[in-house]
């Protein structure tokens, strides 16, 4: 059910990126799609009632330094979180690139409407 909601969010972003004519709205749609995928990945690693995968001093045995089994039984999966962190970094870079392209296009044509940007200048 929740995965279907992620898919719905992705579809909203896709609709925004395909149908809208404003370049800034297209960028927002692409970012909504990326965040929908990130949300799906995070939810794949989630466990109901789980805690954050941070190993504190109380979670390991003081003498043998072995991680407590209770910690391993309740913690959520940290691998999708690391993957999503990388994905957030890459989406930040692509967002900066898209925004700079929008700014340069506006400086050249004076509009954000992609239907009016048709003539080649220069």
């Amino acid at each position, binding site marked *: 059910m929740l995965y279907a909601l992620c898919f719905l969010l992705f579809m909203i972003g896709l609709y925004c990126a395909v149908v809208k004519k404003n370049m800034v709205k297209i960028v927002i749609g692409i970012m909504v799609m990326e965040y929908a995928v990130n949300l799906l990945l995070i939810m794949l690693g989630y466990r109901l009632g789980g805690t*954050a995968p*941070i*190993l*504190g*001093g109380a979670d*390991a045995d003081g003498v043998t*330094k072995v991680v407590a089994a209770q910690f391993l039984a309740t913690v959520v999966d940290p691998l999708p979180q690391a993957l999503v*962190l990388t994905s957030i*970094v890459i989406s*930040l870079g692509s967002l*900066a690139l898209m*925004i*700079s392209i929008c*700014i*340069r296009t*506006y*400086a*050249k*044509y*004076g509009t954000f409407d992609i239907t009016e940007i048709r003539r080649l*200048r*220069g």
Partner: protein
Amino acid sequence: MKGMTVIVKTVSSWVKMLIFLFGIYIILFGHLSPGGGFAGGVILASSYVLLMLAFGRELVERNLPLPLASRLDCLGAFLFALLAILGLIVGGVFFVNFLYQKYLPGSTFHLVSGGTIPLSNIVIVLKVGASLFLVIFMLSRFRYDSKGPAEKLASDPTIGAKE
């Protein structure tokens, strides 16, 4: 773009050091608690963005000039590669944690217990903080440069023919 009102300037001059200090804490404890190189670098860059919003771009440009930021960016990438190749030379494997338990013995959950991981966090901070600062700085400079096509064409007739 000469900055905001005196309220914003006063509060941001109080808050900027706290933000910077919090970023440094996030970096140094990145291997023990949530955080690390990327988050700390974003926080450090955001302290500069706060200064840029409150005091204008010229003060930030005097404080951290663009060539210096660009050099820090390149230095971060170079030192990260150097750390990886040092792992290859010393430990035999690319990116191996060659300092751990051999040169820097530290017990679990202490600050000096990560080997090369805090070093790579610091290097990633150089890369991420400088490049994010450069991105936001250049975006604000684009806005300054772009006056709109009509004025630009009127003021400079070579632009239409160039490029």
